[in-house]
């Protein structure tokens, strides 16, 4: 499958009468977007705001971050199973708005979290302090249940991202990258001497605010399967999770999956990047056993020489991580895992809830328990009302001088386990 990603660099976002993209500037009329959100009768109202790098702005609680894209050639459309039909995506041409993101924010449950600081020490930890953010805060109708509210906000985010993406249709991209994976036989013939490498991504799949979807399917109901990494770039995998935001993958990070990008960078040179294998992280122990058996089997059937294994979350996913690693290594497939750590505030505790000697090649996204003091910022988009209740916050969180004492846990994508950031620990 061959996918061209045309990159349109967005250098500014402004509210305007007419929604359009012109000379790299995204002009948005919120009134154009409102009906897209409100077509779901579970949402009462929505407001839009803009947050730019360097501004004294804090966005919280963040639910999802999405990169607007539009499919201009090839089968299907972006976010299949949500805003587009379930045609197989991942080939043809897709335009992406680079340098910006759509951020959905607002309280769904009282202990929710996810902080993006556009300036100050916290900004260094989240990749979304470097993007121009169009922020969307939804207000639910009276008495809406948490499940329904989560689903409504999640889906509204995809619709709005698609709507903004549409503005790019017809615009000449600043830069184009081509990604191509080959059929099994084709790849072996073309790169007979290169090691066959796969990417196993574990998706968080546990329940409310802990779910991930593939082509619209709740991934806890799948058995592990293979997909083309280019499908992921078209939004085949989307996020429904945001609790303990440091190591959850917002949709943006799936779309811009760094492991996929970095494997493609070696594809045809030092490795033959065969495919992505997706698996889940269910709470039920027998599901964990079954899924890890399946991933190991797929690695074997695809005759892979090596894989990169990425995790999402902490605690029970550590068990999935270790099961996958052990079983895949046992098939003779060399494995490197990407994880993060919960080593306690003092860094002295055991970092993972599970471990095995087979996991001898580990990349870490850092210790999520490390404490950081976030200064008071001039403006809050969303609400600080609940910041005391968020994972990684404590009763001391909101200090008298208005600063926040929190663990890195609360910062969106701070210790991302796909290796999106440079944070690490030793």
């Amino acid at each position, binding site marked *: 499958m061959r996918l061209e990603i045309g990159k349109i660099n967005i250098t500014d976002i402004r509210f305007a009468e007419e929604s359009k993209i012109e000379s790299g500037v995204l002009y948005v009329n919120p009134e154009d977007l409102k009906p897209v959100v409100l077509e779901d009768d579970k949402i009462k109202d929505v407001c839009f705001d803009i947050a730019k790098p360097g501004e004294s702005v804090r966005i919280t609680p963040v639910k999802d971050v999405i990169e607007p894209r539009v499919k201009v050639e090839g089968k299907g459309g972006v976010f299949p199973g949500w805003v587009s039909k379930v045609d197989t995506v991942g080939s043809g041409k897709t335009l992406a708005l680079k340098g910006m993101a759509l951020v959905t924010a607002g309280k769904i449950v009282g202990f929710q979290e996810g902080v993006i600081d556009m300036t100050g020490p916290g900004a260094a930890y989240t990749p979304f302090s470097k993007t121009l953010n169009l922020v969307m805060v939804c207000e639910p109708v009276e008495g809406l249940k948490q499940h329904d509210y989560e689903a409504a906000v999640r889906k509204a985010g995809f619709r709005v991202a698609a709507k903004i993406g549409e503005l790019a249709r017809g615009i000449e991209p600043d830069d184009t990258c081509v990604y191509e994976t080959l059929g099994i036989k084709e790849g072996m013939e073309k790169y007979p001497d290169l090691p066959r490498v796969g990417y196993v991504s574990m998706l968080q799949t546990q329940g409310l605010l802990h779910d991930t979807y593939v082509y619209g399917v709740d991934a806890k109901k799948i058995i592990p399967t293979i997909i083309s990494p280019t499908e992921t770039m078209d939004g085949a995998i989307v996020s429904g999770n945001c609790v303990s935001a440091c190591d959850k993958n917002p949709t943006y990070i799936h779309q811009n999956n760094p492991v996929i990008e970095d494997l493609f960078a070696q594809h045809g040179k030092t490795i033959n990047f065969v495919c992505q294998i997706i698996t889940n992280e269910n709470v039920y122990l027998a599901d964990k056993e079954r899924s890890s058996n399946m991933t190991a089997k797929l690695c074997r059937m695809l005759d892979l020489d090596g894989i990169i294994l990425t995790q999402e979350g902490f605690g029970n996913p550590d068990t999935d991580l270790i099961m996958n690693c052990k079983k895949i290594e046992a098939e003779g497939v060399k494995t*490197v*895992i990407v994880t993060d750590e919960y080593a306690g505030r003092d860094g002295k505790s055991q970092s993972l809830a599970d471990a095995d000697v087979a996991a001898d090649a580990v*990349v870490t996204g850092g210790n999520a328990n490390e404490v950081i003091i976030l200064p008071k910022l001039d403006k809050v988009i969303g609400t600080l009302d609940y910041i005391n209740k968020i994972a990684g916050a404590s009763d001391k969180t909101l200090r008298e001088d208005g600063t926040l004492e929190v663990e890195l846990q609360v910062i969106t994508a701070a210790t991302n386990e796909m*290796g999106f950031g440079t944070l690490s620990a030793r």
Partner: protein
Amino acid sequence: MAKYKVVHYINQFFAGIGGEEKADIPAELHKGEVIGPGMAFNTGFGDEAEIIATIVCGDSYFNENIEAVKAEILGWVKDLAPDLFIAGPAFNAGRYGVACGTIAAAVAEELGIKAMTGMYVENPGADMYKDKVYIIETKDSAAGMRAAVKSMTAFALKYLKGEKIGASCEDGYMNQGVRVNFFEKERGSKRAVDMLLKKLADKPFTTEYPMPDFDRVEPNPAVKDMAHATIALVTSGGIVVKGNPDHIESSSASRFGEYSLAGVYDLDENTFETAHGGYDPVYANADADRVLPVDVLRDLEKEGVIGKLHEKYYATVGNGTSVANAKGFGAEIGKRLVADGVDAVILTST
């Protein structure tokens, strides 16, 4: 600004006094003198810091008179009140490394003065002290002096100025078993791909998180015939004959004891107690069966559930005891149990 004051510790060899034949010289304080590698440190410090005294001690003397020499040196350092104490670098010299680690850790711990040393990663002093004091990693021989001085000087100045010490790999010291965050140059995914390429090519690579070493032991097959089996008791809960005749330490035990159970049917407070310092001993002292269940095993013996209780039991204290010691005890106890024809062991902790 006044220069930071540094006190430097070196052995007889680096002081130019002599080799092994001079290793027994006692500690000497050279106030206002800069000796051997101290010269290079001083140059490196520029006008930011200076060595105000050098302490020289023979390696054998130090290791044979640890307590006395430690007290003497601590006294000197206390009076000199430096901003930083530097020992070594010791490279791969074992006794020198242990001396550097011991004295630097003591200065830091007991005097609250910043202290550091440098040595080769395989120097026994490294394992003993890397979690207690900053140890800068050096080459294995004095040929690496230039590089060692360079990295130790850089670290010393940063440390003196109170700048934030980064992760071990950033600032060149040995990992202290504490996880410290820092920003790498490459993002995680790129590092993962690079690591995989090395692993695929069977080239050496370094994991960013070494898995804890569990040292799991496969259990033996179950005992089929318990009714004829001899069962022994072994504990790390510190149950000893009253008075602790073997002087098993209350923590970091260096030995285990072997005691007779002949004619003993129930442990009571007059005959047995615990030597363990890691838990509230009241209940164990009142009735040591709570840790070493002799009474219950005697019952089972009487009921014919087990053949018999082995007439000797073994005890040590698990409180902070090093893995190496524990392994040694285990191997020795195992040998004795096998020799005595014991079929199975019940291990109790605290």
